[in-house]
C-alpha cells in the first residue's frame, strides 16, 4: 500500500523535500537480505525484508515527534534505525515508513567530571570513543563493533561486548533518556524527567528501563529514542590513538601501562577457572574470545594474514601447510584475549603479577606467538577499537552464530567440545566453511564485574551461493534440534523467529503465539498490556514480543 499523496506531503512538510524519498530503487537500499550476517533467523536465500513506503531523514527530536504523530494520524507503521546492520532495523510489513536517523549524529556533550556523554542516535562507537579519549575517558564498544550506535544498543538491544567486565554492557550504561513514544508524545526519564540533568536513568524522575528495554531491548519496536546520556569509563591511554602500519594491518604502539595477551589453557575447566579468578581479582579491561571466530584450525593463519598488508585469503592454504602454523594453532586451542589497563605503572605491574598467579594456578600460559610486538600492537588496537568486526564475514560473505552457549563459564566450557564435533561434521558436508568446528567467540564477562560469557559459534557461508545458504539453514535447524534435545534450548540462530518469518515479513500470529507460549509466556502477555498502553495504534513491529 503506497503512501497517499496527502500523507507523503505531510511528511515532506516535516523533514523537507531533501530528506524524504519514495523512489523504488532508493527504497531497495533499505532492505536487508535474510541470507546475511547475524540476524538470528534463516538464512533464506535471496529473501529480503519488505520495501518500505518511504524513507525519512529526521534532523531533530521535534521532527521525529511530528513524524510519529502523523503515523498515528494516518495509521502508518514506522521503524527507526541508525547504522542498519541487521534485519531488526528494517520494516517488517507493508504500510511502514523507514526512519533513517543518520542526520542526528552529534556527541552533544561530554561531562568529564561526571563521566558520561550525551549522544544522538547515529553517533557510532568509534566516534564516541575518539571524543572520550581526548579527556581520558572511554566507552564500552559492543561485540558487533565500533561501527554500531551506542544509543541503539543501550536503548534497544543487548549491548554486550568485550569491555563489559570493566565497563558493563550498554543496557547497564544508559542514564537519562529522551524517548518519542509510539503515540508521538515525548518522555524524558530519570533525573532528566525531573529537570535535574542527565546523570541518572532511574530517578528522581520516571524510570522506564524495564518497559523500554528489559534485558534484550525492544529492537526498535517501541517508539524512537532520540538522545541518551551514557556512562563513560577511565581510559589511561593516549588522547588520540597513534595508529601506525600499512592498511589494513593497522596497529598502535601499546603504552607501557597496558598489556595485551592471548591466554591459553590445558583444559576447558582451567579456562573457566581463569575467568572466575580474573573477575575476582578485578584486573581485566577487555576480555574476548575473538580470533577463534576464524575457527580453531585457521585462527593463527588468519592472524598472520591480517597482520601482513601483503597477504590475502589466498595465502590461507599455503600457511596451513606450515607445521609451525599448525603447532601455534594447537597451542591456542582453548584461548581468549585479555587487555589489562594499569591506571599507573605500579598498577599494571600488580595486575601482571596477579595474572601470572592465576596462570600458575590454572596451568595456563601466554601464547608466545601473540607476544610478538607487531602482533601485540595490532591486537591491542583491534580489541580497543573493535574496528574490524566485519571480519566476521570475511570467508564467504555471510555468517551467523549458532548454539549460543551463554551463561557462566562452566556452562559453555562443559559443552564446547560436543558442539565442536557436531559442527565439524556439518562443515565436512561443504556448505559452511571448514574452520575446525569451534568458531565459538564472545565476550569474557559481558556485564560489569564479569559473571557471564556470551559465546556464539560462528558458521561462515556464502550468501551468493544457494547451496551454501540453504545448507547453512539445514545446519541451523539441526543445531537447534540438537540444542533442544540436549536441554540447552534453541540457539541464537533462532532468536528472531518469533518476530520475522521466512518471507522477511512479520511472523504469522499463530506461529508467533506458539513460539512465545513456552516457559515464560506470562512475560509476553504482560508485554501485550504494555504495548496496548503505549502503542495503541499498533505502529511498532513484532520485535517487541507479545502474546495475545
Amino acid at each position, binding site marked *: 500500500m503506497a503512501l497517499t499523496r496527502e500523507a507523503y506531503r505531510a511528511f515532506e512538510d516535516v523533514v523537507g523535500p531533501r530528506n524524504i524519498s519514495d523512489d523504488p530503487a*532508493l527504497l*531497495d537500499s533499505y532492505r536487508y537480505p535474510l541470507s546475511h550476517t547475524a540476524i538470528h533467523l534463516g538464512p533464506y536465500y535471496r529473501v529480503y525484508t519488505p520495501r518500505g513506503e518511504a524513507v525519512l531523514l529526521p534532523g531533530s527530536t521535534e521532527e521525529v515527534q511530528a513524524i510519529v504523530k502523523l503515523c498515528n494520524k494516518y495509521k502508518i507503521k514506522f521503524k527507526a534505525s541508525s547504522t*542498519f546492520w541487521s534485519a531488526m532495523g528494517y520494516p517488517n510489513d507493508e504500510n511502514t515508513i523507514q526512519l533513517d536517523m543518520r542526520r542526528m549524529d552529534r556527541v552533544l556533550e561530554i561531562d568529564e567530571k561526571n563521566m558520561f556523554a550525551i549522544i544522538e542516535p547515529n553517533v557510532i562507537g568509534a566516534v564516541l570513543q575518539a571524543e572520550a579519549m581526548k579527556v581520558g575517558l572511554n566507552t564500552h564498544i559492543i561485540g558487533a563493533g565500533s561501527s554500531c550506535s551506542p544509543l541503539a544498543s543501550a536503548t534497544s538491544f543487548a549491548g554486550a561486548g568485550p569491555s563489559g567486565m570493566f565497563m558493563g554492557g550498554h543496557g547497564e550504561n544508559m542514564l537519562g533518556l529522551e524517548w518519542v513514544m509510539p503515540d508521538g508524545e515525548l518522555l524524558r526519564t530519570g533525573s532528566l524527567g525531573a529537570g535535574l540533568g542527565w546523570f541518572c536513568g532511574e530517578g528522581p524522575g520516571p524510570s522506564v528501563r524495564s518497559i523500554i528495554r528489559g534485558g534484550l531491548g525492544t529492537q526498535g519496536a517501541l517508539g524512537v529514542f532520540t538522545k541518551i546520556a551514557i556512562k563513560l569509563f577511565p581510559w589511561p591511554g593516549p588522547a588520540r590513538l597513534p595508529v601506525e602500519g600499512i*592498511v589494513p594491518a593497522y596497529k598502535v604502539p601499546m603504552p607501557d601501562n597496558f598489556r595485551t595477551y592471548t591466554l591459553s589453557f590445558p583444559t576447558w575447566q582451567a579456562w573457566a577457572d581463569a575467568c572466575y579468578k580474573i573477575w575476582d581479582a578485578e584486573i581485566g579491561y577487555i576480555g574476548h574470545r575473538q580470533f577463534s571466530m576464524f575457527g580453531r584450525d585457521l585462527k593463527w593463519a588468519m592472524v598472520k594474514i591480517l597482520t601482513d598488508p601483503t597477504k590475502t*585469503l589466498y595465502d590461507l592454504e599455503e600457511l596451513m601447510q606450515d607445521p609451525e602454523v599448525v603447532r601455534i594453532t594447537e597451542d591456542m586451542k582453548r584461548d581468549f584475549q585479555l587487555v589489562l589497563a594499569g591506571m599507573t605503572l605500579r598498577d599494571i605491574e600488580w595486575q601482571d603479577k596477579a595474572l601470572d598467579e592465576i596462570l600458575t594456578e590454572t596451568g595456563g600460559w601466554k601464547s608466545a606467538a601473540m607476544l610478538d610486538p607487531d602482533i601485540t600492537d595490532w591486537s591491542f588496537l583491534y580489541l580497543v577499537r573493535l574496528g574490524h568486526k566485519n571480519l566476521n564475514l*570475511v*570467508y564467504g560473505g555471510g555468517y551467523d552464530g549458532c548454539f549460543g552457549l551463554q551463561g557462566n563459564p562452566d556452562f559453555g566450557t562443559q559443552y564446547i567440545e560436543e558442539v565442536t564435533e557436531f559442527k565439524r561434521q556439518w*562443515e565436512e558436508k561443504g556448505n559452511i566453511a571448514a574452520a575446525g568446528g569451534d568458531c565459538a567467540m564472545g565476550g569474557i564477562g559481558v556485564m560489569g564485574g564479569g559473571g557471564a560469557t556470551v559465546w556464539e559459534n560462528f558458521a561462515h557461508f*556464502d550468501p551468493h551461493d544457494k547451496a551454501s545458504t540453504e545448507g547453512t539453514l539445514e545446519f541451523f535447524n539441526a543445531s537447534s534440534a540438537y540444542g533442544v534435545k540436549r536441554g540447552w534450548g534453541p540457539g541464537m540462530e533462532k532468536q528472531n523467529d518469533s518476530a520475522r518469518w521466512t518471507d522477511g515479513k512479520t511472523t504469522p500470529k499463530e506461529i508467533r503465539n506458539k513460539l512465545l507460549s513456552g516457559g515464560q509466556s506470562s512475560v509476553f502477555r504482560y508485554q501485550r498490556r504494555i504495548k496496548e498502553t503505549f502503542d495503541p495504534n499498533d505502529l511498532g513491529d513484532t520485535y517487541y514480543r507479545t502474546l495475545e
Partner: protein
Amino acid sequence: MALEDYKADMERCSQCSYCKWVPLDQIKSQRFAKGCPSVSYNNFNSYSARGRFAVALSLINGQSTYTDRVRDIVYQCATCGSCDVADKICRYNLEPLEMMHELRFRLVEDGQTLPQHLKVIDSLRQQNNMLMESASNRGDWAKGLVVKNIANKPAKVLFHAGCRFSYDKDLSESARSAVTILKNAGVDIGIMGKDESCCGGRVYDMGYKDEFLKLAEKTIKAWTAAGVKTVVTSCADCFHAFSRLYPPLGAKFEVLHTVQYLDRLIKEGKLKFTKTVPRRVTYHDPCHLGRQGEPYVPWQGQEKKIFKQVVVYEPRKPRYNGAWGVYAPPRDVLKAIPGVELVEMERIKEYAWCCGAGGGSREAYPEFSGWTAAERIEEAKSTGAEAIVSACGWCERNFIDAVTATGDKLKVFDIIDLVKQAI
C-alpha cells in the same frame, strides 16, 4: 567485466556501513570521521557503496527502473574510492569502485546521461579537452618556454600538462614551473604542445568508456610513434589514467607524477634548494595519486573456494586498497624545502577526504562538489596551516573556488609552486 559480474559482490555486501566512514581505526574526532562525501552530503543509504550495491542489484533484477533519483544516485559521486579502501579493511574481496564504474557504463549505454555531462562530452569529441576550450589553444600554456616539442625533437621524458593545467590560467604557471625545474635539473624533457590530448581518465570516471578508449588509444599511438619511454605529469587524474587505465590497453610507458620525479632528483642531489620558504602547510592527498595511485598489477583469473566456503581468486588477485599509493614522495619534497613546516590533517593518505572535483561532480553537481571542497578546507584550517598544498590541478581548482566562495584566507598551492619559491 559487466555490471552483472558484480552480482556476487552485491549479494555478499553485508551492509555494515563501513563504507561511510574513514577506517574505524583511524577515526580521531567526530568532526572528521566521515569518509564518503556522497552519503555525507545526501544522507540516504543509496548514496553509499552499500546502497549503490543494493540499487544496482535492484536494477539488474528488474525491481526498479531508471528515474531522476536513480541517475542522481549513480552520478552524484566523486568516484574518490574512499569506500573502496574501507570495504577492503576487513572484507578483502569487495570491489565497490569497479562496480560503480560498471554501473555508470551501463547507464551511459542505456542513454541515462546527464545534460551537464553531455555538454562536456560533446565538446571533448571536438576539442580534445575537458574544459570546453579550443583545441588550438592547448599549447598556449607553454608559450615562451624554451622546451622541446617531441613532434620535432625526441626527448627522454615527456611532460604531459593535462587539460586543467593547460587551460586554467590560475594554474598554468605550475606546469611551466615543473618543466623549467626539471629541465634545469638536467632532465631531457619535451612536451607535445597543441598536439597533446586529454588522457580520458575523467570521462572514464563519468561513465563514458568508449570516449576513454578513443582518447587512450590515440595517446598511446602518438607516444609510441614519438618513441616516448617516460611520461611525467603534474595532474593526479592523468597519472592515474596513464598508470592504471592504460596498461590493460597495452601501454608500457614509465609513468611518474612530477612529485615522484622531484623527490628522485632531490635525493640524488640534482635539485638543491637555495631559499627558505617559511610556511606552515598541510598536504592534501589527491585520490588518484594516493589511494587510487597504486601500481597496476595484471591479473586474469577466477573465483574459487577453499576450505569449502572461503572465497579466493586463482591466481592471487591484486588487492587495491590504497596501501601502496603515492604518499611519501610529496611529503618528502615538502619536508626537504627549507622553512616549510608540514602539519597533517586528520584524514590523510588512503583515507583522505576528497576535494570533490572528480567523477563528473564538478561538472554536474557544483553545489555538492563545492561542499566537499569546503569540508576539506575546514579540515586544513583546523591544523593551523596557512596553506593547503596538493599535487593535482583539479583539486587545486576546487579548493581555490571553495576558498573564494567562503572568503577564507587559506592559500592554495601546488607543490611545484613551493619548490619554485625555494630555488
